[in-house]
């Protein structure tokens, strides 16, 4: 499997291969250790503020990456032949774990809104269903022979579409997001957005552009960690989220009234203009 993109988020190997030693190598090391420090701090604050029990999938992901980055670094240093396999296996597990973050955004964000949660279930089901059908109807050899970056890029793209769908529902139904969840959505959303673009271009570029992407990709991860750290520094209860009101269960009645009123509006528009 060709290793064509940063073997870790801190891009240890690609930069060493591209630049040799010197300041560039040091930069990649600095990015790696800053990531480790930020992840540790995020986990420390998470445990201290009891946020880990509220957002278990998110903190599992951070803990996994915290373990993955140094582990890959040491494998690269002392068990070099195994590096590519170890890296991509860990990266694949990491992407799978990150799907839990999407589920967590849905679970926490829509806990007080069963109506929107039902819409989200159908919309997310459609997104994942279409992705699955597309994967099944495509040639299986494509998946076996595709570079790992392409597989990761595809998975990140599906996550990106799922986040777009969720954000659209949050905005449409005016779902208030608490500070902590907002941080996760913003930070992780930006990271996925940048990952999709970087990973797609990575397999098409070479030379200096490729190297630039190799720096920008880990830099986006640092941005994700910084945003999360800012928003998840302390627990903030979401005061605007109210428990579901049992009086609002009659959806049929509400929908009927809305349809009638929209219908009236349409008739009113036509009648006035056509008068």
């Amino acid at each position, binding site marked *: 499997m060709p290793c064509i993109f940063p073997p870790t988020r801190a891009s240890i190997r690609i930069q060493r291969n591209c630049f040799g030693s010197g300041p560039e190598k040091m930069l990649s090391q600095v990015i790696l250790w800053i990531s480790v420090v930020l992840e540790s701090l995020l986990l420390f604050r998470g445990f201290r503020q009891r946020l880990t029990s509220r957002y278990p999938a998110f903190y599992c992901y951070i803990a996994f990456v915290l373990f993955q980055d140094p582990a890959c670094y040491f494998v690269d240093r002392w068990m070099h032949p195994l590096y590519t396999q170890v890296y991509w296996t860990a990266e694949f597990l990491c992407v799978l774990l990150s799907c839990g973050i999407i589920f967590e955004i849905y679970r926490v964000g829509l806990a007080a809104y069963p109506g929107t949660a039902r819409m989200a279930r159908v919309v997310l089901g459609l997104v994942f269903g279409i992705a699955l059908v597309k994967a099944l109807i495509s040639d299986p050899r494509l998946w076996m022979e595709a570079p790992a970056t392409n597989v990761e890029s595809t998975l990140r793209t599906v996550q990106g579409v799922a986040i777009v769908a969720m954000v659209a529902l949050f*905005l449409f*139904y*005016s779902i208030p997001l608490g500070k902590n969840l907002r941080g996760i959505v913003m930070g992780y959303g930006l990271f996925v957005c940048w990952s999709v673009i970087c990973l797609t271009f990575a397999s098409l570029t070479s030379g200096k552009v490729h190297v630039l992407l190799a720096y920008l990709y880990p830099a986006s991860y640092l941005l994700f960690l910084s945003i999360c750290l800012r928003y998840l520094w302390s627990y903030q209860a979401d005061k605007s989220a109210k428990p579901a009101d049992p009086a609002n269960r009659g959806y049929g009645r509400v929908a009927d009234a809305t349809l009638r009123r929209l*219908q009236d509006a349409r008739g009113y528009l036509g009648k006035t203009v056509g008068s």
Partner: protein
Amino acid sequence: MIGVPTALLIGTILLLALLFLATRGSAVAGSLSAKSDVSLLEDAGELAPCPPEFVARIFDSADWRFVARANSPQLESLFRRERKLVALLWVQQTSAAIQHIMRQHKEASRQSDDLNFSTETKIILLYSQLLLICGLLSVAIQASGPQHVRGLAVYADTLSHRLAEVEQGFRIATTGRQLHNAGSS
């Protein structure tokens, strides 16, 4: 595998959605949660903020004919300008009223655990269509004046009748389901 245009499109949409969430999300949520005590099924008669006899004359050709008979280009120009402003204000008010209806619906439906996906989609489509008609009306009025938008009105009216039939079917289905639920409980 994902192509470059698809990846760029998804990346851009995601970025825009996040920017929108960052800038407008909290403001909208805040304003909505402050208004959460409004009656969810109220009619309020908000669809006719202008007096009906006044609204009926906005697109009426009788006034145009009357002004044309005066044979004064200045009067005609003044009348055209004033009538355009009134028509635009009316479209704006109607659009605001439609958005108000939908805001109330969203507040009620987001907490309804028996929300129906297809009905909700139908309502969203109808809402989008109405907003689109308002937008088109606005553009048409600005471009050629209120006297030339009758074609759009006829189209809206045709759609209105077609949707009335769909709505009738929906009402029958909803009533049937409610009766069935009441019978089983």
